[in-house]
């Protein structure tokens, strides 16, 4: 984001020009290609994109849990409160992870250890990051269970005794146990039914408000973003193509990909006979098209889209787009 005017210290987290590749068997997959974003304290940022767009890779890079090899961070800075996480020694990073930054994983069925009681799994994080006795950690774990709406007397039960929604509550309790400043929520409700999703999102929102936690919500569900985020970044082929406040993005989307996403979703209130899908499919990240990665699917593609790089353009205050159309004053 070209927000150089603002000092990075105004933000809780600033990601600058992050580039991540995966290499295996000689092939290089360009997963994240120069992503920059900023999050203020208490802000909720939605990261929206389709499968393989690089959403989860960004979150894992922030948390420092990318498997290396095959993943490699080629370039970039991840600055949390004035220190670059990418330069921190492993030992220091371990103090950040689960403490200042924590993550809610997509699949509650596999995120928990099946052999440990849910209570002990929450207490483990507390013991690791706070200088407390085992007893105190257990008390804190019980407190967290109650906070996410699970009776504390279920402390000694194992994950298989819980339903999907309850397991996700446990995962959330683990993530929030040390009052993190930043919560990375990677599709936190995708595995859940809508009525349970509503309960879980409601709970995350309430806890966040209480603890003043910022959140990056990674999702492919634009509806979820509309209901719980302040700002939205739309990501395509490892690049942010549009960044705006929720209001701007939903009422006045400008990037052809964002427009395409809206055309693909059937509405809950208005009737359309046919949807207008985006033609073609997401590009192969091993072999990204030259120029703008979206140009082979874009109906507005021009010659200049096929070569060179595109820069961010601020189309209205704090509404950024990565598209040539807005550099040569053509109207959509």
């Amino acid at each position: 984001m070209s927000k150089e005017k603002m000092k990075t210290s105004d933000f809780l987290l600033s990601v600058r020009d992050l580039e991540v590749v995966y290499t295996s068997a000689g092939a290089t997959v360009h997963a994240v290609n120069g992503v920059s974003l900023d999050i203020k304290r208490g802000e909720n940022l939605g990261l929206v994109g389709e499968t393989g767009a690089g959403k989860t890779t960004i979150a894992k890079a922030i948390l420092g849990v990318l498997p290396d090899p095959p993943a490699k961070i080629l370039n970039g800075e991840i600055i949390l409160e004035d220190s670059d996480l990418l330069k921190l020694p492993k030992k220091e990073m371990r103090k950040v992870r689960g403490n200042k930054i924590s993550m809610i994983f997509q699949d509650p069925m596999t995120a928990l250890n099946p052999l440990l009681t849910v209570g002990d799994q929450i207490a483990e994080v507390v013991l690791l990051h706070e200088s407390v006795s085992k007893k105190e950690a257990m008390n804190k774990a019980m407190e967290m269970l109650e906070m996410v709406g699970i009776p504390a007397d279920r402390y000694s039960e194992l994950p298989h005794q819980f339903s999907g929604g309850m397991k996700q509550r446990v995962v959330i309790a683990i993530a929030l146990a040390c009052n993190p400043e930043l919560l990375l929520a990677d599709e936190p409700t995708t595995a859940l039914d809508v009525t349970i999703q509503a309960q879980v999102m409601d709970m995350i929102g309430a806890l966040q408000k209480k603890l003043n936690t910022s959140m990056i919500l990674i999702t492919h569900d634009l509806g979820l973003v509309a209901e719980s985020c302040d700002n939205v970044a739309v990501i395509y082929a490892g690049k942010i193509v549009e960044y705006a406040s929720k209001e701007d993005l939903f009422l006045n989307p400008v990037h052809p990909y964002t427009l395409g996403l809206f055309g693909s979703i059937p509405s809950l209130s208005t009737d359309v006979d046919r949807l207008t899908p985006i033609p073609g499919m997401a590009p192969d990240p091993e072999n990204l098209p030259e120029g703008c990665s979206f140009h082979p699917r874009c109906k507005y593609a021009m010659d200049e889209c096929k070569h060179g790089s595109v820069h961010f353009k601020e189309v209205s205050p704090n509404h950024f787009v990565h598209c040539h159309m807005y550099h040569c004053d053509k109207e959509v």
Partner: protein
Amino acid sequence: MANNLIEAKNLKQYFNTSRGKLHAVDDVSFSIEKGTTLGVVGESGCGKSTLGRTMIHLLESTSGQIMFKGEDITKVNNKQLIKLREDMQIIFQDPFSSLNPRMTMIETVTEPLLLSKRFSKKEAEERANEIMNTVGLSARLWNSYPHELDGGRRQRIGVARAIALNPSFVVCDEPVSALDVSIQAQILNLMQDLQEKKELTYMFITHDMSVVRHISQNICVMYLGQMVERSPSKELFQRPLHPYTKALLSAVPSTDIRHKKERILLKGELVSPVNPKPGCRFAARCNYVCDRCHEPQKLEEISPGHFVSCCRVNEIN
């Protein structure tokens, strides 16, 4: 209605488990008019997939009737069943596990044609080519294996295989939930085109409320094996009557940020469908629960075509 292609009457599907009888589908009745789509919605475990599979006789029903083109198909023998299968098909949810990994795309589509014994090898090939073009799969991919293709293209094969023998009824079991939205829209458009061209009748099973509103004329809402509401699509979204439908619709996140809707949060979670107590199964989570809810509920027609199974429907609406 005279034009019904398929009709279920008091259909039940129970499974024996070590803990007792699991009521997966409990006394469900509905009909689907020829050339239309019935959407079946509900949360995981509500029995919607079981209902779909029972309808096309992939599972034998416990009791009740399924009338297909005027005949009861619940008690057919194997020979009749083979003929029946040509006329009723299914598109599965997961395009990754529902295709044989050792068969090429064109082989997958040709197989049902050859099995029907209605076509010579050459005719079957020609027909398969035609179908591949219909579903929009370019010729260079016909000889590829499932693992070489992405989800959207694989699901096109799932559709191609289902329509290969010109069935009149297709059960679509979450056909787009494994796909990204831009690809999902392509497949939905394809299915609508095929329906128009071939006068197909769909039973469309999904948990996605916006998709079901888009594609179906009528919608059934299921909760733990019971049908709680059935209505024309638009009416259901404008005037949901059952407390569960209301909560379900209010829980769907909407992209419309100008109109904030009021959310009805439900208490608790699904109860077990094993040996359920009589009465409304939603009662444990319902905000309007009363003593009468523990008695068996009846599906009542509130307005033309709009059925609800709730004893307090008139008080709460």
